[in-house]
């Protein structure tokens, strides 16, 4: 058996197809980006080698890039301060919903499986200044002065977009916390009840501390998801008005395909990958120290 399992040809045959495809479609392109990022290519014609100029410009002299990073941070803050607490609360409510438990859990996740093309288009219609449901609703309840050009106003658009992203990801966050709650042994609840702990105390003192490992997982996922945000932006605002809703993924796309700054767009791509890697490493370091157990 050992001889069979350490046969090099077999190992090669099993690993090579997947590994090769992965190198070819994920790693090689990033190296290509690193190269084109050092040129001033505009997508067609000849180009010149400009060294690290593009990279330096992105890091030190590109307000839109930093705006995109700040938007990711803003989205992250909103996710962690609003979406996650609400998702945690509702995951607790769902576990207490008796025979409707499964139904609610299923319903809450539905937006996450619907195509972003569809949900974005829907929310664009909801926010439409003239025909949108939101403004119609405000008129109907007599709050006409609250009506806005939701996605056209530079100071409001980012919040609308953040709301939509949080709405779509709500079921995902809820599912993670729900799974965490399922992992807590039932007798712990009973023991706490025997000790005379009330419901609020039961959750704040016993259940939520036990959920810490899952909270960490959810935070790590939220950080990368916020950084990688693109599709909703692309479809709802394309980064506008005046780049106030820009995110890195959309910015590099627009730079390359709309502004034809292909070399510069590739440099953004490379920095994007590096930022994602660095943040993941930092978070793994920070969270690995103490892994809680039930």
């Amino acid at each position: 058996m050992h001889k069979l399992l350490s046969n090099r040809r077999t190992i090669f045959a099993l690993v090579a197809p997947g590994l090769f495809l992965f190198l070819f479609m994920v790693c090689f392109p990033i190296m290509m980006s690193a190269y084109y990022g050092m040129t001033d290519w505009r997508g067609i014609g000849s180009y010149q080698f400009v060294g690290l100029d593009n990279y330096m410009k992105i890091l030190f002299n590109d307000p839109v890039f930093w705006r995109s990073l700040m938007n990711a941070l803003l989205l992250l803050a909103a996710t962690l301060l609003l979406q996650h607490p609400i998702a945690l609360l509702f995951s607790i409510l769902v576990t207490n919903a008796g025979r409707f438990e499964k139904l609610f859990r299923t319903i809450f996740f539905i937006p996450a499986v619907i195509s972003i093309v569809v949900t974005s288009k829907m929310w664009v219609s909801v926010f439409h200044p003239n025909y949108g449901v939101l403004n119609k609703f405000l008129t109907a309840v007599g709050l006409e002065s609250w009506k806005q050009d939701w996605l056209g106003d530079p100071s409001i658009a980012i919040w609308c977009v953040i709301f939509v992203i949080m709405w779509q990801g709500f079921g995902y966050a809820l599912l993670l916390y729900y799974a965490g709650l399922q992992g807590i042994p039932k007798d712990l609840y009973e023991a706490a009840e025997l000790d005379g702990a009330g419901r609020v105390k039961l959750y704040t003192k016993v259940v939520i501390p036990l959920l810490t490992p899952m909270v960490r997982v959810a935070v790590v996922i939220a950080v990368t998801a916020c950084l990688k945000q693109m599709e909703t932006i692309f479809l709802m605002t394309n980064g506008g008005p005046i780049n106030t809703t820009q995110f890195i993924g959309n910015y590099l796309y627009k730079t390359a395909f709309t502004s034809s700054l292909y070399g510069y767009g590739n440099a953004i791509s490379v920095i994007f990958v590096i930022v994602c890697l660095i943040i993941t490493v930092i978070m793994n370091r920070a969270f690995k120290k103490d892994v809680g157990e039930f």
Partner: protein
Amino acid sequence: MVRKITLHTLLWIVALLQLFPLIWLINYSFLKSGDFFGSSILKWPEKLEWSNYINAFTYGSVPKFLWNSAFITTAAILVAAVLSLMLSYAFTRMEWRLRGVTMAFIMLGMIVPIHATLLPNFILFNWLDLLDNPLSLILPYIAFSLPISMLIISGFLVTIPKSIEESAVMDGCSVYGVIFRIILPMTKPALATACIMNFISWWNEFIMANTFLTSEKFKTLPFSIMKFAGQYSSNYGAQFAVMTMIALPTVIIYLMFTEQMSRGITAGAVKG
């Protein structure tokens, strides 16, 4: 009692907020185009306008896009499942020196944003003459499916006792025979979970489709609504019908396999 009522009211309010788009979508897909500009949020259709669906099918080349989507997604998830199974077996059962490093390397794929590969892959596919070819989607879809699928499948593989494989080998079965005749049927639940999760991702994927497919020949379904919105901008009814058709397959698959999906997501999250 009061607590129970409050609990259920709260849950229903949020459930409605989450379900609203689906209701709204289906509702509007049955309205006449003239009905869209009234003041009400939802509108009871006087008569179900099936013609919206018929229009979508005849003008929007929806059947072609539907077929493209189905073909590209199916090809990607099936190949990804086989490759991930082979990789998982090599990583959990085979004995070789670089396996830890190689596995960690492929796992990096979960961190790399797909958007960072859009620009270079556009050039790469241009060189290889693969632009506007289904392969320009199938290949990256498979590559980006590998990390998560491997995680799910190898997590399941380590729980299967090795004794079955050992006796099969005694009977003269090769490693490939072990993988495809013995392990494959046993890992079906994990394979199904991986396939369902990949199905939802790639059925909904549109940014690569929008970038690498330049003519209409192979465009996938999510694209059709963008095309539709431009060309038939006044035919709202048909637009909503197309959107409903894009949304329903994933919702139905999700409702059929809720448990597998939930397990896959939490497994991927905890181990990733």
